[in-house]
């Protein structure tokens, strides 16, 4: 890293204009090294493809078009939920209430929507999402107004919401899935599963909102430096409330999707999505501190975890191994994201480059 400075560092130089140049610190580092987010996102997808190829060795069925569609369908839940989680991580927070809100959304959908017309009224969907979003609002209020750490607040609200669900349903949530959701999850359009198309459209819009809108830019700013964001005129409280509300709404919608997929709700339906949602975000290149990462990477992380899940299940490996692998992946991703690791990689690349181009 000091190589490019070598020409300027001359300890025998007399003070004068040369010294001023020196002190101005001409930044001669190469430009555009900060697109590491794109690099890491691409990297995840490469690993996905590699995993698919390897899985073929285990089961020749894997990699077929039908299998790919199944993967995308199975991954859809995690993708939607990870978007919300990703937004809270982006601003430097965390949402541990997700499993309970998924359950809330699912329970409300199954129990409530089937009480009015068999298909349920269309306005019930936004109503349920609003209820779920309210949980997010409460989370954000605790975090901003009362300075409760995000981890604690969302953990506590998750337990509270779960207890409420448990109390109200008495342990066995009743009802069935409304027709609209069943169609979404199992219908087909032009030979492709409807849910796959939905996921693709969702991904495009979601990624766009995160990286190309002023809302998204402000989230990055908040995660990068909350104090500076406030001084720059960003309304931290409003943005935090929006973010957690969105996260909860997406979790609620995931609950709806799950109800449509399995035609019913259970109280523990949200549990399998908490740790994988965090894992997908971290593996996809987002920093747990916030201010860095893309949704594209998170999508890759979600798909990768789904593929691993399918492979492990088909291998007959126990859930324990699955959990350990997901934990190991998170750890590896965290280690690789660490500044030191990247700087080391960068310095190797630069050393190789500088030997080919003479300064």
């Amino acid at each position, binding site marked *: 890293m000091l190589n490019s400075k070598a020409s300027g560092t001359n300890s025998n130089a007399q003070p004068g204009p040369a010294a001023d140049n020196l002190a101005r610190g001409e930044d001669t580092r190469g430009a555009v090294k900060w697109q590491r987010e794109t690099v890491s996102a691409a990297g995840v997808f490469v690993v996905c493809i590699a995993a698919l190829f390897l899985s073929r060795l285990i089961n020749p069925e894997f990699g077929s078009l039908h299998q790919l569609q199944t993967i995308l369908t199975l991954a859809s839940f995690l993708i939607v939920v990870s978007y919300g989680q990703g937004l809270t991580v982006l601003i430097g927070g965390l949402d541990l209430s997700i499993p309970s809100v998924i359950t809330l959304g699912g329970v409300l959908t199954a129990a409530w929507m089937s009480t009015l017309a068999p298909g349920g009224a269309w306005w019930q969907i936004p109503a349920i999402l609003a209820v779920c979003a309210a949980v997010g609002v409460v989370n954000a209020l605790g975090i901003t107004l*009362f300075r*409760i750490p995000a981890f*604690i607040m969302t953990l506590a609200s998750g337990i509270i919401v779960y207890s409420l669900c448990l109390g109200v349903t008495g342990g066995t949530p009743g009802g069935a899935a409304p027709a609209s959701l069943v169609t979404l999850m199992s219908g087909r359009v032009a030979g492709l599963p409807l849910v796959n198309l939905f996921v693709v459209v969702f991904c495009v819009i979601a990624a766009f909102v995160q990286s190309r809108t002023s809302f998204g830019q402000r989230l990055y700013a908040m995660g990068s430096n909350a104090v500076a964001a406030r001084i720059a005129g960003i309304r931290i409280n409003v943005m935090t409330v929006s973010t957690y509300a969105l996260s909860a709404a997406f979790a609620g919608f995931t609950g709806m999707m799950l109800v449509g997929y399995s035609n019913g709700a259970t109280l523990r339906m949200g549990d399998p999505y908490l740790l994988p949602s965090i894992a997908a975000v971290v593996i996809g290149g987002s920093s747990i501190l916030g201010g860095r990462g893309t949704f594209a990477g998170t999508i890759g992380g979600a798909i990768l975890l789904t593929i691993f899940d399918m492979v492990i299940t088909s291998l007959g490996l126990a859930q324990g191994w699955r959990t350990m692998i997901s934990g190991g992946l998170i750890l590896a991703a965290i280690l690789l994201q660490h500044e030191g690791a990247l700087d080391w990689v960068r310095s190797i690349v630069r050393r190789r480059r500088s030997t080919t181009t003479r300064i």
Partner: protein
Amino acid sequence: MSTRARPDFSFIRGVMTNGVTMVVVLYVILYAVYSHIEAGALSVSAFSDLVNNTIPLAIAAAGATFVILLGGFDLSVAGVLSLVNVVLATHPLDGAGGALISLLIAVGIGAAVGLCNGILVAYGGLQSIAVTLAMMILTRGLALVVLDAPGGGVSDWISDTLTNNLWGVVPASGLVAIGVALLWALFRRTDTGVALYAVGKDQTAAALSGINVKRTRCIAFVLAGALYGVAGFMLSAQTASGDPNAGAPLMLLVFASVALGGTAFSGGHGSLYGSMIGAATLMLLQKVLFSSGVQSFYIGLFQGLVMVVAVIFVNLITYLARRSHRHA
């Protein structure tokens, strides 16, 4: 030119803002309520029952206090508890000697996990929440691999003796807790004990004062892990069987206990005694609610609320304490 602390006021203020005092008062009040509701509350068996149920949480909260004093988070507590529990349930060792070896194994597992956390956080410079999250997932998975469904059996010696009373009066598990408290009292009088508070408050100033920040951090994680191991050991004595998810329900309670006991999540303030009494208070609250006929699912609700209120309260107290000192 100089200021002297006005002894009288600052002492009173110190006691009032000391979280331990508040939680002890709370505990006493709750116990009075409890004895009012439940007839046999003041009996030895009821009390030792309560103590037995509380000890795993109390010791786990004690361990977590080390990390929170540093200003960090330790999510791996749930995983270590589960892992220790299933190991003890699938490999029961007989007799007192076996129990001792099991304890050493439990502490060893916890300390090993703590060491991994400590190295990655202190020397690797990674965020504690991320590292301990990964470790929690790993240990949880490992627990599932060792025992994939609730079952197994813990050695009789452990589950009998440690849930019994010594000399008919003193709960054996309580002695373990007192042992932990004594160890903390000793630790506070070591340089590392003082360094812990320094690093948690301002790690730059601590470094400039000559403290080895990295080593202090690492030691804190190892000690925390060791205590989780002991907690897992006591939990196994309680449940007498193994469950790969044994630790999960305790995670929130651990942090609730620490908050209730007056330790701030910002670091540098708090004590282990507070966390342990906070744990006792929470379990007592659970008992009170249960005895007064509140349905079980609402207990979770209450615990969540208590958690939030406790943190708000501690924040409020530290804010007021800081304000009154600002213009000293």
